[in-house]
């Protein structure tokens, strides 16, 4: 599979899953804005990525789904149950397609037809909902619904696919770094100082510091960190500290959220905060963000004459006049006013970056119409402006244009490559516009202005494309000669073959002459290009391989004690043996740490399995007409990936059983005095080295009498055994192979093979299953699985000169007793141990070996099976070892005697017994 498709499968799986979750939230609360935005975003991204891969069927469906969601998001309609159903169905279909892509690499053949149906269904809903809008809103047709989403797309792309679909690629702003709005809270002096430094090319960083709530307990002092931070230029509170109920406040819970501006290198910054990287977000400063007006508005309009003057001086590059005018005005205004602040910035900008048209014009426009320029925080949104900025092409009024020589100087150096103009490009149009302007102005005074204007635009064009213009053009001193020069150039250009590609548009940023300013941006940009990567996306196979290698290392390490033993016993080198042991201790420590780290990497929250249950419960409860509430607790509990994978199937069985067999119909529940709505609790928690999952329902519970009857009818147990059985044992018959108490098997829970499989799966994975059920009150099933499965502790035992393993967690103790302590009780051998009678199993008998010569002593391994102690008679015990248990494969698997094999340090193979199966 190619990488792009692989990536898509990964991404889409996640997106579909999340979209499904959000839809379930929406079902409960159709107006939840967060869930709406979430699901909209997921569907939108799906569409975009699907579009890239040209998965038309998929895009068709998600496109209509997106339109429907868009309508809801804009508050124009409410998602009712039928919408949610249809959307969920769409997501299911997408999920099925993604699976097909994963396995076959393409969409199934019927995808187009299915897509047609689904899209039609959704479109019908969409239309119905659009119809339901208020009369004030004109109805939107399906095609029009594209409009709110339309981005600046290449018109060809949608035509080529012929569906008028906006593919929405690359327009997702979600990943963009938010611009730090708090910069405006820094006092003006600090911002101006930083602005100057930024212009000088200093590297400035914006730091968003959220100290850990418990950092005071760890001896951390965020303010000391900042006091000692390199090059502190600004410090402020991003969010104010709560002043509510100070008498109840916890003074040792850190509530500070600090913003700082630092003049330093990224490396220095990372080093200074190296112990708390997770509490910090930093990004290079975009210096325009510093330019924010402060203070209260004057409450009256600024004199338009002043604005005209300022604009005129600036356009004519009369810097001194401009500064003088600004100074005079500043003396007149209240320095604390917002207008004064804007003027101060104008002054600053005029002095420092006289060519920055974007900043100058924005500031002037803000003076003129503050309300239209400032956002809700009374700030200027520079990110938007910088992205949208294109150099102004308006020509100044001709009579204002003077001193054309000065402008010509701004033309870039001749070291740049010559500008190449392509036929029909925007550059060509721009140049032709200039020629028309020059040709039209015949009045000498107007000609002068037109010349100045054209020269300025040409200079801007050259800097924006980082090219130079022919000398005949740059050196033209009259409108006529410039017109001629342009004409010659363009005609020659049209004849000459195009050699180098030209950017079709001038760069979006305001053109700048080669100055230190350009150096400044280049400096910060190179910093921005090297973001700190905080997490990796690694294929699970690679992690597993790494995990296997760590496992191998653990086993290899275990050869060292053998080696030491050999050195001592075979070669008589005691000193070498001791040194090997010392080395072993070192390696042992490291591998343990490595093993722990590896385990941490492979840990996943159980939510990976849990997240599908809300949907399962919803669907089943509808199907069966049983209202059911699901409580999910402890989703964050973590366990190793394999454990999580092993959990999945058994849990589905258990959940289905609870829904299908456990929870009664509403009428029955009412008659029994319970609430009509059934409750299922799905909980997970960690208990030492175990992860415990509990499924508990408040349904009818398991009737031990019914179980006994059923088991007898099916011939699973004989009459005598039925009478002996405790209620608990009878209930546990549910796990017996081939058992089902419900006569008509539904399509939900199986036909009596389910619970049997559940128990075997869990036990194979080294886990346990506990059942507790009270008739009429409900059933609780607990799954206990080891946190990690990769490395197991195994106790070695000897039988007939052969070493075998028994999983350590099954071993309760080892005892050696005189043979006469064994008693025969009817046909069973037993032993009395601490006033408890234990059944004895002879391992040789189990393995079909001959019984040994009677010795005086017997070695008993007391194991716990399903909570019951059993004594296993073995020849001898040996020490415990850590091994990687490999499951049996092929013909050996069906033997049912061995759980798996493991390689020992000395190279021999250890067979690990499957005791639950054997005994």
């Amino acid at each position, binding site marked *: 599979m190619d990488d792009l498709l692989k990536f898509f499968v990964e991404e889409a799986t996640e997106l579909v899953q999340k979209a499904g979750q959000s839809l379930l939230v929406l079902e409960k609360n159709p107006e939840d804005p967060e869930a709406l935005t979430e699901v909209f975003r997921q569907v939108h991204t799906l569409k975009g990525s699907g579009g890239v891969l040209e998965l038309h069927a998929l895009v068709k469906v998600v496109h209509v789904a997106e339109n429907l969601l868009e309508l809801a998001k804009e508050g124009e309609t409410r998602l009712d149950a039928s919408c949610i159903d249809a959307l969920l169905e769409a997501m299911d279909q997408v999920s099925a397609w993604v699976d097909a892509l994963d396995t076959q690499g393409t969409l199934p053949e019927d995808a187009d037809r299915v897509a047609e149906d689904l899209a039609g269904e959704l479109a019908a809903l969409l239309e119905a909902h659009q119809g339901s809008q208020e009369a004030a809103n004109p109805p939107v047709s399906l095609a029009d619904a594209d409009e709110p989403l339309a981005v600046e797309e290449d018109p060809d792309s949608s035509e080529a696919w012929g569906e008028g679909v906006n593919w929405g690629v690359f327009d997702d702003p979600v990943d963009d770094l938010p611009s730090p709005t708090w910069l405006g809270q820094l006092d003006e002096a600090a911002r101006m100082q930083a602005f100057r430094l930024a212009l000088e090319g200093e590297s400035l960083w914006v730091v968003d510091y959220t100290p850990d709530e418990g950092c005071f307990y760890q*001896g951390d002092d965020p303010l000391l960190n900042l006091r000692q931070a390199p090059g502190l230029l600004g410090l402020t509170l991003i969010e104010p500290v709560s002043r509510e109920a100070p008498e109840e406040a916890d*003074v040792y819970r*850190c509530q500070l959220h600090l913003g700082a501006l630092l003049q330093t290198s990224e490396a220095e910054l990372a080093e200074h905060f190296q112990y708390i990287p997770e509490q910090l977000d930093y990004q290079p400063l975009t210096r325009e963000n510093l330019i924010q007006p402060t203070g209260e508005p004057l409450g009256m309009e600024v004199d338009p004459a002043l604005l005209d003057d300022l604009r005129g001086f600036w356009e004519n590059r009369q810097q001194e006049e401009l500064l003088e005018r600004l100074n005079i005005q500043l003396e007149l205004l209240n320095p604390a006013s917002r207008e004064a602040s804007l003027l101060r910035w104008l002054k600053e900008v005029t002095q420092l970056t006289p060519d920055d048209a974007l900043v100058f014009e924005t500031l002037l426009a803000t003076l003129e119409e503050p309300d239209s320029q400032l956002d809700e925080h009374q700030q200027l949104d520079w990110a938007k402006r910088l992205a949208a900025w294109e150099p102004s092409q308006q020509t100044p009024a001709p009579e204002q244009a003077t001193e054309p020589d000065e402008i010509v100087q701004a033309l870039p150096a001749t070291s740049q490559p010559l500008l190449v103009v392509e036929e029909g490009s925007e550059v060509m149009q721009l140049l032709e516009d200039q020629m028309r302007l020059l040709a039209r102005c015949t009045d000498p005074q107007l000609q002068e202005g037109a010349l100045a204007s054209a020269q300025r635009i040409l200079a801007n064009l050259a800097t924006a494309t980082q090219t130079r213009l022919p000398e005949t053009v740059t050196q033209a001193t009259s409108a006529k000669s410039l017109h001629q020069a342009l004409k010659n150039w363009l005609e020659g250009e049209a004849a000459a073959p195009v050699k180098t590609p030209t950017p079709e548009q001038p760069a979006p940023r305001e053109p700048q002459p080669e100055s230190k300013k350009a150096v400044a941006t280049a400096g910060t940009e190179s910093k921005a290009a090297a973001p700190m990567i905080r997490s990796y996306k690694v294929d699970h196979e690679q992690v597993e391989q790494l995990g296997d290698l760590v496992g191998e290392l653990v086993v290899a390490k275990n050869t060292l004690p053998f080696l030491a033993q050999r050195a001592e016993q075979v070669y008589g080198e005691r000193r070498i043996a001791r040194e090997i042991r010392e080395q072993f201790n070192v390696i042992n420590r490291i591998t343990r740490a490595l093993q722990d780290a590896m385990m941490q990497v492979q840990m996943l929250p159980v939510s990976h399995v849990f997240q599908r249950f809300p949907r399962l419960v919803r669907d089943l409860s509808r199907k069966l007409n049983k209202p059911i509430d699901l409580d999910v607790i402890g989703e964050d509990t973590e366990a190793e990936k394999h454990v999580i994978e092993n959990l999945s199937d058994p849990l589905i069985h258990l959940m289905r059983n609870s829904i299908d067999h456990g929870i009664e119909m509403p009428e029955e529940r009412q008659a029994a005095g319970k609430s009509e709505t059934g409750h299922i609790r799905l909980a997970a928690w960690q208990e030492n080295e175990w992860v415990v999952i509990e499924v508990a329902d408040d349904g009818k519970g398991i009737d031990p009498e019914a179980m006994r009857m059923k088991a007898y009818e099916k011939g699973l147990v004989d009459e005598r055994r039925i009478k002996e059985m405790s209620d608990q044992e009878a209930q546990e018959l549910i796990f017996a192979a081939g058992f089902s108490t419900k006569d008509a098997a539904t399509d939900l829970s199986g036909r009596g093979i389910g619970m049997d499989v559940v128990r075997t799966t869990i036990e194979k994975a080294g886990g346990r299953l506990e059942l507790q059920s009270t008739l009429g009150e409900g059933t609780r099933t607990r799954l206990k699985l080891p946190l990690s499965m990769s490395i197991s502790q195994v106790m070695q035992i000897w039988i007939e000169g052969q070493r075998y393993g028994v999983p350590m967690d099954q071993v309760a103790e080892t005892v050696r007793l005189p043979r006469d302590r064994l008693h025969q009780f009817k046909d069973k051998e037993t032993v009395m141990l601490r006033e408890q009678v234990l059944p004895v199993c002879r391992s040789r008998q189990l393995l079909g070996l001959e019984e040994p010569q009677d010795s005086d002593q017997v070695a008993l391994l007391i194991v716990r099976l399903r909570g019951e102690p059993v004594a296993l008679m073995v020849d001898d015990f040996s020490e415990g070892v850590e091994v990687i248990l490999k499951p049996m494969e092929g013909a050996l698997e069906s033997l049912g005697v061995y759980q798996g094999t493991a390689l020992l340090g000395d190279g021999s193979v250890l067979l690990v017994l499957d005791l639950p199966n054997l005994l």
Partner: protein
Amino acid sequence: MSHTIAKDTLKLEGVCGVEEAEEIHEKLLEDPELQLDLSACEHLHAASFQTLLAQPRPIKRGARDAFIKRWLQPLLEEAAGPKKV
């Protein structure tokens, strides 16, 4: 470090550590009229700073320590609101 109270003023001295935060918190709670004297304070631990922000008070004597004076005091003053004239 230490802190003293004289004439309705809480004077912070030296390095104001984390252990101080609780006491400052209590003092401020006890006396809502208490004002601050930062002139002898050499460093304010974040916990103490946070406490002062949660119960902002007028600053009678400003800090001499450059860091506090330049960055923390303005935030404390802002939290306390405009000075009463």
